[in-house]
């Protein structure tokens, strides 16, 4: 039942669940906030801040700069957190969700799907560590996936550029694909530039001249 949900941005957040992590809990009900803090503290987390007033949430979170945000899945202020993930990379952080009631059908579905981190109804201190650990690990996995996706997209775009440049050189010089690539590569090496840069320069020059 330990599942996490977090905002995904490339990040270099800590890889271990250290007790010196700063945790922000978004919860306007003082009783529940107290329960959560107590449970966290019992498990060794001391640096816990509760944000009860949700006006200006994004600004306050940016100022606090916590390592992890804990928020109820049903909290409407979740949309305000969206912005933090959409802002700069420096502000990226995992967000763990928890749910308060386990009877609701959709909440159950969300928990099953790994969207929410915790059922507070059965909050037990020994459960918190694995929950947060899972949240952070999956946040990092998603960040990694995002980075890899970006890299893959870039590689694909680069290959297209190089292919077009190769085609141009082949036509202009009447040489084979292999020879065209060798020529581009040699030029890149002699100028201490990357193959993609030479290819781009070729295409730009050809656009200008055509």
């Amino acid at each position, binding site marked *: 039942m330990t599942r996490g949900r977090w905002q995904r941005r490339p990040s270099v957040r800590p890889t271990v669940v250290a007790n010196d992590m700063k945790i922000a809990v978004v919860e306007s009900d003082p009783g529940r906030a107290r329960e959560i803090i107590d449970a966290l503290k019992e498990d060794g987390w001391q640096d816990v801040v509760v944000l009860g007033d*949700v006006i200006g949430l994004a600004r306050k979170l940016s100022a606090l700069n916590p390592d992890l945000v804990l928020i109820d899945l049903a909290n409407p202020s979740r949309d305000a957190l969206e*912005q933090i993930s959409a802002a700069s990379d420096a502000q990226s952080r995992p967000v763990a969700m928890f749910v308060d009631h386990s009877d609701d059908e959709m909440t159950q579905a969300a928990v099953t799907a790994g969207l929410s981190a915790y059922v507070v109804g059965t909050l037990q201190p020994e459960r918190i560590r694995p929950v947060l650990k899972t949240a952070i690990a999956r946040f990092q996995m998603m960040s990694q996936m995002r980075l890899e996706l970006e890299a893959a997209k870039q590689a694909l775009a680069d290959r297209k550029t190089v292919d077009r440049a190769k085609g141009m050189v082949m036509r202009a010089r009447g040489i084979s694909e292999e020879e065209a690539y060798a020529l581009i590569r040699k030029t890149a090496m002699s100028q201490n530039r990357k193959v993609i840069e030479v290819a781009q320069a070729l295409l730009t020059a050809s656009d200008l001249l055509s």
Partner: protein
Amino acid sequence: MNTTVLNCGYVPLVDSAPLIVAQELRFAADEGIELNLLPQPSWAALRDLLALGHLNVAHMLSPMPTAMSLGLSGPPAQVDALMVLSANGTVIGVSSMMADAMRAKGWHGGFDNPIATAPPMLAALNRPLRVGVPFPYSMHRLLFEYWMRHTGGAPDMQIITTPPPLMADAVSSGELDVFCVGEPWGSVAVSAGVGELILPGVAIWAHAPEKVLAARRAWIDDNATSVSGLMRAVSRAARWLDQPDNRVLAIEILARSAHLNLPISAVEHALTGRFATRADGPPVHVPDFVRFYDRATNFPWRSQAAWIGEQISHITGIDRAHAIEVAQGTMRPDSYRMHLGPVSVDLPGASSKVEGALSHSTAVASTKGEMILGPDAFFDGKTYDFAPVK
């Protein structure tokens, strides 16, 4: 007839009306569908549940399918818009302090002039404006930023996502100078005496797709029968909502239903387009404040999506051509034609149009020859002609 239950997510706003009416007036039941209407606490929650397959369909902000399909928002998922559920319906307001500062810079009030309103707004404060929007990918934000970019350049401003029910509080606490929100939440700020309304969204773009009916592409492909029944039911509901004689009854049904939990006055403001722009002011009437059916509102124009894609590229910096291509792919006129053509819904001759070209209502080529489009002009008179998707 067997009944198919569809999990349908929505955020309890007045413009979820076509879904509520489809269920409550049994238009869905006539198609063998039961809409299991599931209110969601936030757009993020709704988005995630749709992406993960726990919702079959959802009432969504029109830029969300594009943002999701571009991988900008939530778990990456290919999500398409089956039809547009409503056009327009938003307002822009400012805090009382900001309104006074604008008057000191020569603002004369009024609720219909983006060109005259921008300079006093931009001159009012000596710091970046703090602008509240309901979601990073919302038509509210796209319209506001479009307005700003097209009047006096892009000013320094902070866009602050604020859930609509909290908008008035955020304005009164000084957290926001400007707020862009759907009714009734603008009127709520006015009657609380914390702000004034300065423009309706319709003054920036006369026909802005506001909410869409969205589903995952794979689900759409695998469930043609359900998609067909659902679209017919929602189309009937939208048509029913736009018949003037039905508006009073619609207000009654929406306010009474357990689905919205809004007072009758709140629903009334939104559906009639009549509201006060300041606490002691007379009510103004905004024509076309919200549309559900007329002027081919439900048709998922690829060109509307392209405009959304272009704006998303502006606010995120992602490649324009890529954003436009992905956006166009999320609108499904093919599905609309296939499922609604046989039930005599009038279909336009093309699936793209020049956005912003119509300053007046204009008859256009359609299957039944009854289609009237527009006005759909932008406040600055610009037009957008996007290449059709390949």
